[in-house]
């Protein structure tokens, strides 16, 4: 799974967001290490829509700007992102096994 796709799914797994919100969320969670550029973000969103990993959602009432599109994760998206996370976890375990990472306390 491409990193941008993974990050976007992670963000949407928490709650529905609009594009800028996703980028902010990712930046905050990764402490600025990952910045999604506008092109990367929206192109990924488009492809993920097409692939059925996310869907468009209705904007919440408090948001005044109707032009903003909100996105929500689909069941398929949730399944895929958990799979990916599990795969990464296994990888991390392997890394621990060869003493590349400290064991969890």
């Amino acid at each position, binding site marked *: 799974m*491409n*990193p941008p796709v993974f990050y976007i799914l992670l963000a949407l797994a928490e709650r529905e967001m609009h594009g800028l919100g996703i980028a902010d969320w990712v930046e905050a969670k990764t402490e600025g290490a990952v910045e999604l*550029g*506008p*092109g990367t973000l*929206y*192109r990924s969103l*488009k492809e993920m829509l097409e692939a059925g990993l996310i869907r468009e959602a209705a904007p919440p009432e408090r948001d005044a700007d109707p*032009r903003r599109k909100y996105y929500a994760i689909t069941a398929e998206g949730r399944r895929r992102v958990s799979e990916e996370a599990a795969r990464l976890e296994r990888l991390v375990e392997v890394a621990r096994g060869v003493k590349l990472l400290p064991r969890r306390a």
Partner: protein
Amino acid sequence: MPRAELHARLFRLFLRAYPRPFREIYGAEMTRFFLDRLARARDAGGRGAVLRQWARAAADVAKTAAAERWGGRVRRTEPMKGREFMTSMLQDVRYAARRLRRTPLFTSFAIAILGVGIGLNAAVFNLVDTVLFRPSPFADPAEIVHIYQDSDDGEPSSTSFPAYREMAELTGIFAGVAATSPDKATWEDTDGPRPVSVEYATASYFPVLGLRPYRGRWFDTAHDRVGAELVAVVSYRTWRTRMGADPGVIGSTIRLNNQAVTIIGIGPKEFNGEAGALATDFWLSISSAPVGGPFRVANLDRRQDHWYLVKARLAPGVSVERARAAMDVLAQRLAEEYPELNEGRGITVFAHDEVRIHPEFDGGLFTAGMGVLVVAGLVLLLACSNLANLLLARGISRGPELAVRQALGSGRMQVARLLLVEALLLAGLGGAAGLGLAAWSVQLIPLLPLSVAWAGLDVGFDHRVVVFGVLLALATGLLSGLLPALRSARTDVAVALRDEGRGQSAGRGASLVRRGLVALQVAVSLVLVIGAGLLTRSLANAQRVAPGVDADRIALVETDLQRGGVSDAEVAVVAAQILERVEALPGVERAALTNRLPVQSGWTSTHVVEGYDPPSGTGSVELPVAIVSRGYFEAMGIPVLAGRTFTADDRPDAPPVIVVNETAARRFWGGDWARGRIRPEGAEGAWRRVVGVVGDVKVIDLREPPTPMIYYSAEQMPPAGFAVVARTSGDPATLLGTLRSTLRDVRPSLPVTRLATLDTHIGGALARLRAVTALLGGFSLLAMLLAGLGVYATVSFAVERRTREMGIRLVMGAAPARVAWMVVRESLTVVAAGVVAGLALATLAVRGVQTMLFGVGSMDGVTFAGASALLLAATGIAALLPARRAARADPVEALKSR
């Protein structure tokens, strides 16, 4: 306009890079997104941060817009950093290496071809660079000038030693003037006599050039006159290669031309001799002139002999022009003082950078050097084109793989880069192999059939060659990799996945060029193979020639009594002593002496033959003459055909007699020689009677036609320089050491100028032909290999393209052989065209080797036919390999594999 609006407009302009539908859906949000980020950047870091944000966004847009337009996936969240780029490059290298390892045959072949091509070029460059381009090792070379007296033809040539003295005595023009004179000498060390290059030099020589000896000291002015001690400075190279780099040589004496010379220093590392690349073994002081013989001593005072090369360092502030004016004045003065010698003889001054070796040769050297470089470059170009062909064929067979890679998200550039990396990797390995080859070739130079002057070529192997080789490898990689890389990158993913690339054949033009190249390679290699074939046959013929002597079991030692300090009056006595002692040696059956060995250039003299009117109309003939002692013909196994040979009765006071060879007897007297008389031209009445006829012996060259020759009696005319030949009962080689010591026993001062068996001596006469044959043979093999590779590549290419078609044919019941033939036939027309062109070219090119041919015409049908057959066979095999593979393929697989 508010600033934010300006940014927004600019960004919207950027968005035009996306396809319209995408822009309509996401454009507005992306703009807002970007403006938000921009505002944040401005708050955080001011103008710099804004610019960075712009740069990042531009890269992001460019990448994703390209992906959106032409397919591919978004992969990266941030721009690739330098380190990441390196990593991905390394990945490419690793991947390419893995692929190359998987096709070891292809890989080793490609490396070998490139290695030879690059190696040849590096070796040639090394040679040419050494001779023509390497920078001067002298201090402040701009101050150095070269001064030449004119030759009789008015060309800058060389200078007499008295004229040098006058240049050196001028004041105010030069800071120093130096004269040197190259010569050859015989150096006797423990291994026996060997020829060396020496250079007589004035004490001013090193100071003028700004050089210092590596160890010890250089000559001082006391060494500038005859009568002072005999001293030498050994060149650094000779010290390293022939004296084992032993610092103890300083102060020791060596024997040059059989005179003891003291070594007082070792030359500088960076300079091994006059004339740039031509290395000197020893520099000798002017006081050592006696080493060169009485004439070299006399020469120091002779204005008519121009033996010296003069270099000078300009005095501070003096221009080359002023030096020229001063030399014009000097030339004028010399013309007035010595009109018979110097009338109209100018003196020319060259700046240092105008002269490489000598004004007379520089032009020719440059042309020759560039010519060789161009030829070597052409060979490399052929190698490149072949590799490109092979990579192209590989690229096509990899079409599906590459398409899959693209579909999986590799950018086009990445795929192209991968192929380029592969080519560069091959070229790099080939370059390494080539440099190894070039380094090794340095050791071959002494084996080349060069004249003595060139045998001392000071060729090292320095960083310049390495740089050249690396650049060459890089260029080779780019040249042979770029075309296939670009082609593969152009591959349309969808089409390639569907058709596996077979739909796309190379353009008609490209294919024509490829065939043309292959035909050219075939033609060139055919020319070379024919040349090598002609020479090989000549060599075989020459080796079968009977030299006219029974060369088994003969040892010989050559000396020069005069140089050994024997007075003219003593020559006959000492020669007789030597002969007597050699004859008494155990294992020696017979011994004799001659001043001229068979198969060797030597003395010819103009004679008048009584009753013979030579076609030249001059009334005289120039005949090779040998002075031989009694028993010479018997010792050498030369048959006596009629009359007698020399006897004890042919004393100096007896009537002078002559023995002639068979050809002379037949040509001059029609065989009726018995009353024949010959006299040297100019010696009226001094007739010499012919007393016998002996068999022909090859005079100068094994390949010469029968040549008339005459023999004088050594008893009647003792020669000062001669070889003692000894017929032995056992292996003649074991006698060589004894022969030398016997000579020394008679007179310790006698130089040994040659020590060998007659077999070796005669074999040496073919050394040049043998070397040229080997060289041309090597080249023709290489060319044939290249041509074969070219054919192999084109056929592989065709096979890859037509696998499916061949599969269909096989399924339809075509015999595999027929299918293979179908592919081979195509390339055979190309080969045939090359052969025809090559044959035509060869009829012209054989003129180049004509003078070296022997017993075979330059239009020898057997050679021409044989070479063509050889080439056809080689290229046929090259074509058959891939064709057979295709024909053997499982037709079902071939069909499925689409």
